[in-house]
């Protein structure tokens, strides 16, 4: 899917806000490559700096230090005019949709085309095409105030796509929407990514959004990227505390599970629909106690983990352990924890 050609490259990026009496570091030591055609997620809590990062990608915010390359071009070396042109190759959608309230849907979609100076009749034609892509052909003359949140975001997506951008930046694009609408908007983005080969950068604070559409993610915490990699790797084996809390919002598990003879089972996507635990119990004729479980179904595969407590009888527990190790899962014995 993702070709190995970076469309966005960020090197040693730093952003500091200076006010009269204080300096706030919003971003530091950011190094990032986003490849052509992938859906890349940036996740972090509020205030972590993720919105600033996405604004540095189109130079709405000028980084204090470091470079941003878009399609091989160093944005800081562009003239004002060239920067405006470069921005036209990046679409952006927002949490609050940011549609022009005094224009109807068609005219909203025509807006970026007006900016690039496209002929009016041509722009209208393109706008109608895009409205069809986002499934709102019947709303052409409606004003944003007459649309639901999901519909507004669809119009915003159509508008962002109007100038045929190479990248679509989504800043918390689904955070103001209900789960069902979120799902439909994400499905639309996925479809656009597949059909048009558009690179999508998703900024969010919700892991569920990442799970649904991203291939790779970066986790931002306190102005830095703390973890980066494939969604599956980070989900199954989070290294940092913040990554753990995103991977399972229920809590940071092993530490909280009290007891002995504990075993952690990690499902990393190999064991799809095998009822591993039930089979273990039946095979070994031993009862196990589920202390913690957090599993998810991603693309038809099981991901997540469980913590089980083995039976007191040592023979029995060894048998269970041996059996589990023959399965396609990762098994770790967990230290007696407090």
């Amino acid at each position, binding site marked *: 899917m993702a070709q190995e050609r970076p469309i966005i490259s960020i090197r040693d990026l730093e952003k500091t806000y200076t006010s009269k009496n204080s300096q706030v570091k919003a971003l530091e030591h950011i190094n990032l490559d986003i490849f052509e055609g992938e859906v890349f997620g940036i996740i972090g809590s509020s205030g972590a700096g993720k919105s600033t990062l996405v604004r540095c990608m189109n130079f*709405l915010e000028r980084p204090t230090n470091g470079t941003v390359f878009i399609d091989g071009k160093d944005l800081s070396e562009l003239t004002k005019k060239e920067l405006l042109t470069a921005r036209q190759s990046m679409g*952006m959608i*927002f949490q*609050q949709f*940011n*549609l022009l*309230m005094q224009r109807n849907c068609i005219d909203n979609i025509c807006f970026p085309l007006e*900016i690039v100076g496209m002929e009016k009749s041509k722009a209208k034609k393109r706008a109608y095409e895009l409205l069809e892509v986002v499934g709102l052909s019947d709303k052409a003359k409606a004003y944003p*105030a007459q649309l639901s949140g999901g519909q507004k975001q669809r119009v915003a997506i159509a508008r962002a796509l109007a100038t045929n951008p190479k990248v679509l930046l989504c800043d918390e694009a689904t955070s103001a929407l209900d789960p069902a609408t979120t799902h439909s908007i994400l499905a639309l983005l996925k479809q656009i990514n597949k059909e048009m080969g558009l690179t999508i950068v998703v900024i969010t604070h919700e892991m569920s959004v990442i799970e649904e559409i991203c291939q790779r993610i970066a986790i931002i915490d306190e102005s830095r990227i703390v973890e980066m990699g494939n969604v599956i790797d980070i989900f199954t084996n989070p290294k940092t505390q913040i990554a753990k809390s995103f991977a399972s919002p229920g809590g940071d598990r092993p530490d909280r599970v009290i007891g002995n003879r504990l075993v952690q089972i990690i499902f990393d996507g190999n064991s799809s629909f095998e009822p591993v635990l039930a089979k273990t119990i039946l095979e070994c004729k031993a009862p196990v106690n589920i202390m913690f479980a957090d599993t998810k179904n991603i693309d038809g595969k099981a991901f997540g983990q469980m913590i089980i407590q083995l039976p007191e009888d040592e023979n029995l527990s060894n048998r269970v352990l041996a059996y589990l190790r023959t399965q396609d899962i990762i098994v770790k014995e967990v230290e007696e924890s407090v």
Partner: protein
Amino acid sequence: MFSSEVIRMIGFGLLETLYMTLVSTALAYGIGMPVGVALVVTEGSSSPFMRGINSVLGILVNLLRSVPFLILLVALIPFTRLVVGTSIGSTATIVPLVIASAPFVARLVESSIKEVDRGVIEAAQCMGASMTKVIYKVMLPEAKPSLIVGSAIAVTTILSYSAMAGFVGGGGLGDIAIRYGYYRYQDDIMIITVALLVVVVQILQEVGMKLAKIGDRRIN
């Protein structure tokens, strides 16, 4: 009740008042609109030059707004003579009216544009819109309903200023009210001119509000 002469005089006064008010409002917007836009655009800019322009404009606007209109009216008499050749009559009144109301209009325009959602402006910048395009295609059209409400406020304020100009022979209904009603104690003329002013204000205000509402796509 009134002789036809008085009726003609009041009718002419009404026309003069409308002439002064509308022409002054148009000219005040000619100056105040760009100043208002400039106040918004230069505020908090990263360039010190722009911030400088912002403070200069801000101070100038505040200065002019703090001078009482009656004082300004008298102080500007030499300037008015220079511009229109006389300091008496409705055309002469337009000069101080414009100078007094342009800063007020600038503030009205400034506050209307500030109501435009920052996010929408940001979205336009994302699409590669230049500052000029942001002003013409986003700020002004998006602020339109609020700008119209503002213009209704401006036009009624300018109308009441124009009545004040009657004290220095400014012409219009205010002039009649002062000359006949105030100096000659002709209460009936005073009442009728004031009543007419009330009606005109009422109509201008209503029309402005209606226009703003009809043009606003956020509610319908």
